[in-house]
């Protein structure tokens, strides 16, 4: 009986537990909070409620405002001005009474009194071109910003309002009750900026032939989001962190010179009025062009149009349903091509509008890249719900709006272009068209959380680009392209969970790092099946709604049953980096002679060695107990084991048993702050290889070092941690055993001499 008990105890505590000495200390130790990397995120995430549920879904009390716009816009090409009259219908679907409404006046970012230049420090520039010097130190600033002519209610009565830089408050005569609507009219105009000279997400590009290409956005006073997360989202627009807008329906008429070509958010309501009859026929026919793009407006027609300067005008009428914004592009110079895309039986149009200067690059790739983006993103999320997606060629741009976006990239004057130009152009089109899903439809708060649209979008973009051209956009670039950023000095890093304006390295923090993180989750931590379902669930749950970071984090776990709190905590809430290495590899051999550790254990139980149950023991090669003859012994050479096998297994089972001959103790170290799975590649004496993945939870009880025993029938010649660079390991010097003695520099030098 006692022997049985001892055996049971030994079975339970067969690890090194008893070897630990109890250390007596005189001074009492300090306590600490839970510092585990695996601590759940309950203290970081907001308390769930009936609008944003603990599951990550929206709850039964979720409400969202709706804002409808009816607008008449006039584009004055001769003077680069734009005029508008808009009627806004604000539906208060919240349970609250509202004393005022906030509108975004983004154009005021370029008004003479804008705070944007005031808050950018950095001392004198290295050099000033004459025009930059004149503008910065001598000249009058650009007279940008909105000129509000009036704001009136439905009865024509003036409405009280107050402008604070890029935000405007409408002071309601009486609070707007829950469920009611408020209708008001704004008349405004502003000077359109030359965005080539002054930058900006909208404006016009002047061409040497005297024509302008307008990409017009953030061009009308727009309602800010009101919800139960931020209240009114009224952070000022400083030029970087983008928008938070309500969904609604847009009925817009735009007046342009008669020889302009234009496309916009929404569906063109009067194609017959604005196209020639030939163009109109091509416009209708293109709806069946599923194979290749076809022209609606040909290069020849665009060339002819750009020579004219019509004084007459025409009106373009658009209607857009359930969109959060409206934008348009217009010029004499525009070619228009089209391709129909079939998404599960529904036809969506992929359009591109570009000047002849964009060819042959644009004719070849733009519309095809749009179609490809719609297909890949629809697979990852939901079928694209809007009627079209349009890519406009605007030099030096990359900016997204519902159904329409501006994209740079043009060949040289002789029509030649490098692979880099092509890659840049396809990359930016994929990125901006992809933004239709995040944030135009899955409508996160861009001003607060840049990563939620830029990061998630950059992640899906990886796969869309790879699908379009796997050679130009290899998947193997990810996630290692973020290593440079993550290995940087901590003083230049912020957690992803930071507001966009506060970031030192905006691109790496809000685009590259979240995208690389999601890539690691999909490819390494969760696998495609679990990840895809959870990611799709998030997109489905929050399309046409306003999700928060917690809704994303929670849904990804709720739909997959994978605890990811450690990943969100490390990758999104800290600036830590991953560095896992091999500290030590020890070889062990099997013996039936009890080791010193076994003797100590026997002593602890007050028994003698001979009372220990029959057992095999592992002896380290460098231990004094090791005898050279153990090297030649296989485990089954010990009768103890062979008897057990012979009595307990059938011949068939015996044949399937592994025959380990070598036992390796692997000691992994983790100088990095992040926890990550350990991916190990073993290379054996016969040249074969084997992979093993230890989940991240291996670091639960020791954040610095873990030890595993790895049995093998063949001797190991080489061990590599993370051989394919899947975990953004910032230091590869400790990833191999035996240690590499030659550094990268010397290897390069040697190869160079050889060549």
């Amino acid at each position: 009986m006692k022997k049985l008990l001892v055996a049971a105890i030994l079975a339970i505590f067969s690890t090194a537990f008893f070897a630990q000495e109890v250390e007596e200390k005189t001074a009492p130790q300090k306590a600490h909070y839970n510092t585990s990397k695996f601590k759940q995120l309950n203290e970081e995430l907001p308390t769930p409620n009936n609008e944003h549920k603990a599951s990550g879904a929206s709850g039964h009390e979720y409400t969202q405002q709706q804002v409808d716009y009816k607008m008449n816009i006039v584009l004055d090409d001769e003077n680069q001005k734009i005029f508008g009259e808009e009627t806004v219908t604000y539906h208060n679907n919240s349970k609250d009474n509202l004393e005022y409404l906030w509108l975004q006046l983004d154009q005021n970012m370029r008004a003479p009194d804008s705070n944007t230049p005031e808050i950018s420090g950095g001392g004198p520039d290295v050099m000033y071109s004459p025009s930059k010097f004149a503008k910065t130190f001598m000249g009058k600033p650009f007279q940008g910003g909105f000129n509000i002519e009036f704001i009136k209610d439905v009865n024509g009565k003036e409405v009280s309002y107050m402008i604070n830089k890029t935000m405007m408050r409408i002071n309601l005569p009486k609070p707007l009750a829950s469920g009611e609507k408020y209708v008001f009219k704004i008349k405004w105009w502003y000077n359109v900026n030359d965005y080539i000279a002054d930058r900006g997400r909208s404006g016009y590009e002047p061409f040497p032939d005297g024509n302008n290409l307008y990409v017009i956005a953030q061009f009308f006073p727009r309602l800010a989001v009101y919800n139960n997360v931020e209240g009114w989202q009224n952070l000022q627009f400083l030029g970087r962190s983008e928008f938070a807008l309500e969904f609604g329906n847009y009925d817009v008429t735009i007046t342009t010179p008669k020889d302009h070509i234009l496309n916009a958010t929404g569906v063109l309501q009067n194609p017959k009025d604005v196209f020639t009859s030939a163009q109109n026929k091509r416009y209708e026919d293109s709806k069946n062009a599923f194979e290749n793009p076809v022209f609606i407006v040909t290069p020849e027609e665009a060339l002819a149009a750009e020579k004219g300067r019509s004084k007459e005008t025409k009106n373009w009428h658009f209607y857009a349903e359930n969109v959060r914004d409206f934008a348009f592009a217009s010029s004499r110079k525009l070619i228009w091509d089209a391709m129909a895309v079939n998404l599960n039986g529904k036809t969506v149009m992929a359009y591109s509008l570009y000047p002849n200067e964009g060819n042959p690059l644009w004719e070849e790739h733009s519309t095809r890249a749009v179609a490809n983006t719609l297909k890949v993103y629809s697979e990852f999320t939901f079928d694209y719900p809007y009627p079209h997606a349009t890519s406009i060629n605007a030099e030096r741009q990359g900016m997204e709006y519902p159904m329409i976006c501006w994209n740079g990239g043009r060949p040289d004057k002789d029509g030649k272009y490098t692979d880099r130009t092509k890659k840049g152009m396809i990359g930016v089109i994929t990125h901006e068209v992809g933004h239709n899903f995040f944030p135009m439809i899955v409508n996160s708060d861009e001003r607060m959380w840049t990563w939620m649209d830029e990061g998630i979008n950059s992640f899906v973009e990886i796969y869309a680009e790879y699908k379009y051209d796997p050679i130009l956009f290899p998947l193997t670039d990810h996630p290692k392209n973020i290593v440079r950023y993550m290995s940087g000095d901590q003083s230049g890093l912020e957690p992803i969970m930071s507001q966009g304006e506060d970031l030192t390295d905006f691109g790496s923090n809000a685009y590259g790092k979240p995208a690389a993180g999601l890539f690691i989750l999909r490819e390494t931590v969760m696998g495609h099946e679990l990840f895809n379902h959870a990611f799709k669930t998030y997109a489905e749950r929050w399309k046409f709604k306003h999700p928060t970071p917690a809704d994303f984090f929670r849904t990804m776990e709720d739909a997959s049953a994978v605890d990811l709190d450690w990943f969100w905590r490390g990758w999104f809430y800290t600036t830590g980096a991953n560095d896992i290495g091999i500290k030590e590899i020890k070889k062990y051999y099997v013996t039936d002679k009890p080791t010193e550790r076994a003797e100590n254990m026997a002593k602890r139980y007050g028994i003698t060695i001979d009372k220990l149950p029959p057992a095999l023991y592992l002896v380290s090669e460098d231990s004094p107990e090791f005898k050279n003859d153990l090297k030649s012994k296989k485990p089954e050479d010990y009768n103890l084991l062979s008897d057990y096998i012979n009595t307990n297994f059938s011949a068939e089972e015996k044949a399937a048993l592994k025959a380990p001959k070598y036992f390796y103790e692997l000691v992994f170290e983790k100088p990095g702050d992040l926890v990550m799975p350990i991916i190990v590649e073993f290379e054996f004496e016969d040249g074969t290889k084997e992979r093993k993945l230890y989940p991240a939870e291996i670091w639960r009880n020791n954040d610095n070092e873990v030890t595993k025993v790895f049995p093998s029938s063949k001797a190991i010649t080489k061990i590599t941690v993370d051989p394919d660079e899947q975990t953004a390991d910032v230091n590869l010097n400790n990833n191999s055993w035996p240690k590499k003695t030659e550094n990268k520099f010397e290897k390069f030098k040697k190869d160079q001499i050889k060549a």
Partner: protein
Amino acid sequence: MQLKKIIVILLVLPLFAFTMHKYYVSLCEIEYLKEKQSIQITLGVFIEDLEFTLNKNSGKRLNLGSKTEVGNIDDHYKKYLNEHLVISVNGKNQPYKFIGKEYDGDIVRFYLEINNIKELKSIEVTNNILINEFDNQKNIVKIKVKDFNKTFYLNKSNDKSLLKF
């Protein structure tokens, strides 16, 4: 919005064309190996930004890293590096040997070496690569001597890093 566009918004007059990569940064790793009496320098730069700069300086289209790259490209590299990456060892400017370059995706990496340094008392790195062209250019310099590591972040207002032992 694609990353680059944004950074640019604060510039009154941008001097560069559209780019795809997400940041303006170069990484210069310097290691002194006493047993080899050698200072090994590895410098990684975005091809696109360097191409813009070298095209501008030379008035030619150099087509870096492409099939149509000009034949004497290393001369252009050497000239630019000698002007914008200056290394002074023990108080004296030391020319470095251009071992070679490699193209790795969007990056070109240069391997440079200074030989016959018996003892390292001080090293000063002046690195203003791409700073004239890109206002937000950051040049990271990492210096490693035995177990000692130091990282410098250089930019338009400070392009020098000095280490004394």
